[in-house]
C-alpha cells in the first residue's frame, strides 16, 4: 500500500478558506510524488471521517488545517475532530497541525511514548488578509508570506525528509520572507510591518515535538 497523506481542509470562514486554499497546493503535489491522498474537505472534515482514516496503517502524514486550541483541533464549523480523547490515533504518525496553539497540550500527548512527531504552534497561527483578494486567497501576497512557508513543512515530509528537516526548511523560508518584508517596510510599502509581526509570531511559535528523525518511507 502507498503512503497516505491525510488532510483536513474545512472551509467556512476566512481563516479556514485561506488555510484550505493553500493546502490545495500541497494536495496537488501528491500526484507528482506518487503518494495517496485523502482530503477531508468542507463538511467531510469531521471526527468520524478523521478517525476512520487516521487510524489506517498506511496513513503516514496527517496535515490538519483549522481552528484549534491547546488541546484540540477543529474541522468543519468548529467541531472538534482531534483531542485528548482520540489523540492516540496520531501515535507513530507525522502530524503537522496548522492550527492555533495545538502543540501546547495535544502535540505533547500525540508523541508520548511512540516514534511519531508533531509540528505545530505554541501560540495562535495568524495572518493578515487583504480584502481585495479574500475571494482568491492564492492571489493574496501578504497572506502568502505566512502560508507558503507553512506548506513547506508538508512538501518536505512528502519528499521523504525528516520531521526536523521539514521544520527547519519552513523556518528558513519564514526567515527569507521576514527579510523581504523588512526591505519592503523600509520602502514604506503599506501593511508590511503588520505582516512581518504576524510572520514573526508564527516563526517563534512553530515547534517540533517527538521524534525529529520521523519520516515516511
Amino acid at each position, binding site marked *: 500500500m502507498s503512503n497516505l497523506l491525510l488532510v483536513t481542509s474545512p472551509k467556512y*470562514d*476566512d*481563516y479556514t478558506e*485561506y488555510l484550505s486554499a493553500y493546502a490545495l497546493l500541497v494536495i496537488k503535489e501528491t500526484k507528482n510524488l506518487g503518494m495517496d491522498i485523502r482530503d477531508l474537505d468542507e463538511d467531510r472534515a469531521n471526527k468520524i471521517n478523521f478517525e476512520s482514516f487516521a487510524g489506517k496503517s498506511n496513513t503516514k502524514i496527517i496535515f490538519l488545517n483549522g*481552528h*484549534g*486550541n491547546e488541546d484540540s483541533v*477543529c474541522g468543519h464549523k468548529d467541531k472538534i475532530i482531534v483531542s485528548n480523547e482520540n489523540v492516540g490515533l496520531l501515535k507513530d504518525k507525522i502530524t503537522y497541525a496548522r*492550527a*492555533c*496553539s495545538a502543540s501546547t497540550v495535544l502535540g505533547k500527548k500525540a508523541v508520548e511514548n511512540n516514534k511519531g512527531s508533531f509540528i505545530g504552534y505554541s*501560540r*495562535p*497561527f*495568524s*495572518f*493578515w*488578509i*487583504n*480584502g*481585495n483578494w*479574500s475571494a482568491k486567497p492564492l492571489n493574496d501576497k*501578504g497572506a502568502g508570506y505566512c502560508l507558503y512557508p507553512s506548506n513547506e513543512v508538508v512538501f518536505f515530509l512528502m519528499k521523504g525528509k525528516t520531521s526536523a528537516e521539514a521544520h527547519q526548511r519552513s523556518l*528558513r523560508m519564514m*526567515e527569507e520572507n*521576514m*527579510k523581504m518584508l*523588512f526591505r519592503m517596510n523600509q520602502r514604506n510599502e*503599506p*501593511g508590511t*510591518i*503588520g505582516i*512581518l*509581526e*504576524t510572520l*514573526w*509570531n508564527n516563526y*517563534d511559535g512553530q515547534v517540533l515535538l517527538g521524534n525529529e528523525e520521523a519520516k515516511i518511507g
Partner: protein
Amino acid sequence: MKLQNSISPDVKEIVLARLDVMPQNYKLSVGNQGAFTKEQLIKHVKEGDSVGIQVVEMQLSFIKALTTGKLMNILNSNE
C-alpha cells in the same frame, strides 16, 4: 508571553499606533477568534478583551524580538 487580564495604558497606546498604520482593507485572522478589521482590532484592544489581549501579546512578542536583537540577527544573517 502571557498578559494578565488587563493592558497597561502605555502598551495600549503603542499597540493602537501600530494597528493604525495598517491599510483600511486588511483583516487580521487571529486564530480561533476570527478575522477582524483594523477598526475592530482597535476596539478590542481598547476594551482589553480576549481578542485585544491576544493582539497585544503578538505585538509585544515582536517588540521583544526587536529589542533583544533576535529579529535583527535573522534579518542580518547571510544564510
